[in-house]
């Protein structure tokens, strides 16, 4: 009886999982921390996300992997707005990947926590490098957002180090004014920038972060935003 019940589930288990497990294979490197209190976070770009409807089955992660990342090691990073939840998971992109959005099951010991969070409270991004290395370009990743296709804009979550004004400047001189985050504990990020995909220069856009604090321009930092060959929305 028991065995037959078990067997009846077998076809389910054997049925093909969402494409992701074949596209992204975990390397086993990574960690996850959920701490009582966090006071400081040093990362300038906390997350790159995209707008969209809430995912039907949270917690779920949607990432955008450009086609030219095929075969490479990538790191999926998440940090909560209050800085208490931090995770880093390393994957290898399948060699045949052609680029696009991917749904990823949550890899976590805190599913209940992640399930309750909105995309606005969890900053995530995927980095074109092994975890622990900081030199790769960045691409978008978002928690609990339903499947997205070629969004009009990407949302960049920035830690401004207590700046008063923040903007992003594209290589063409387009300037995006970022908006301060008004609610919650602003540890991991305190500014949100909505970057129209129209100002991006695919496959890679170098964006400079301009910060003004107390009337003075702070040292300029930059990052490479990989948008791959995302087709414009028709």
């Amino acid at each position, binding site marked *: 009886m028991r065995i037959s019940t078990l067997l009846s589930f077998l076809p389910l288990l054997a049925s093909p999982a969402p494409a992701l497990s074949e596209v992204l294979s975990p390397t086993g490197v990574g960690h996850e921390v959920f701490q009582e209190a966090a*006071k*400081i976070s*040093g990362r300038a770009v906390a997350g790159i996300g995209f707008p969209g409807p809430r995912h039907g089955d949270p917690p779920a992660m949607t990432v955008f992997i450009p086609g030219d990342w095929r075969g490479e090691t990538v790191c999926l990073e998440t940090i909560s707005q209050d800085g208490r939840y931090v995770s880093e998971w390393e994957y290898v992109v399948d060699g045949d990947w052609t680029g696009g959005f991917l749904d990823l099951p949550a890899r976590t010991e805190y599913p209940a926590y992640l399930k309750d969070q909105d995309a606005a409270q969890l900053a995530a991004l995927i980095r074109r490098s092994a975890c622990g290395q900081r030199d790769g370009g960045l691409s978008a990743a978002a928690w609990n957002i339903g499947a997205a296709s070629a969004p009009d804009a990407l949302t960049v979550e920035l830690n401004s*180090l*207590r700046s*008063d*004004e923040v*903007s992003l*400047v594209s290589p*063409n*001189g*387009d*300037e995006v004014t970022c908006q301060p985050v008004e609610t919650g504990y602003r540890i991991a990020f305190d500014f949100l920038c909505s970057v129209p995909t129209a100002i991006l220069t695919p496959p890679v856009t170098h964006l400079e972060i*301009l910060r*003004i604090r*107390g*009337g*003075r*321009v*702070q*040292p300029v930092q930059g990052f490479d935003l990989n948008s791959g060959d995302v087709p414009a929305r028709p």
Partner: protein
Amino acid sequence: MRTDYRKYLGYAVLALGLLVVIAVAVPRERSFLVNARTQGFTLQPQSHLSQVWPFARLALCERRSASSGGVPGPFCDARLFNQVLFDDASVSFASGSTVQVALTDGGDAMVIYVRNDGDIALHIDDKAVGSPATLVIPAPQSSVIGALPLSGRLTVGNIPASGEDQLLEAGEYQIRGRPLLSPNAVTWAEGRLFPGDKVSVVAKDKAIIREAIGHASLRDGAIGVQFLTEPGNSYLKLERLGAEPNYVGVTWIQRSLADPLIIFLSVFLALLVAAIDLFQRIVRPRGD
């Protein structure tokens, strides 16, 4: 006859004791006197006329978009600002604005940055400047600038972080109040401020910053800020890196130790009770 006088003496002692208790227990309003040496402070002016700051020379830095050209100047960051120079101009701040004042480049310039949620931030003489507004006072000298009056909600210093340069360097505070039935304020408690402290005086609910009156002046390479808050049930809010905010108030013991009336009454009461006891032992020998 004898019982009467004992009864009245008892009442007198009780009344004096009650007076001491009242003097101790009645809440007294306190004000905070803060004196600090800092690289920066933040002021929220009470009204647009509460302070007018005259400067012999000042540069207004007007923000332009990163890509457009303009007329940059030596005092404003050429990447983002155009510069407009003023001589002998007076600056006044809009009510509701937040004014950040900082010394930069080792005291070679004073930067005043004013924000007012998209509204007028300040006036230079009669010229209105929108928010956010950036002013640079080149080569500020104490003999030229003198004292800058401050009136409003003040916060001195900032919590240290990478790149933070508006730090408090040193300072001290006093908690002052007027004892019951006394015309003069006395110091109830005092303490030191340490480098990197962020200081403000908040109301009882520990959220609203109290209005204060004071002045700022240049003191070799730093800004001296001295202010006195309006009397009230206030706390000194001390923020330090790595610690929860600390709210410094005053205890009834500290108040009592600085209150001449309470000390006098306590001593007098003790002497009185001792005298009565002695008197009774002498006048009314045992077994009476």
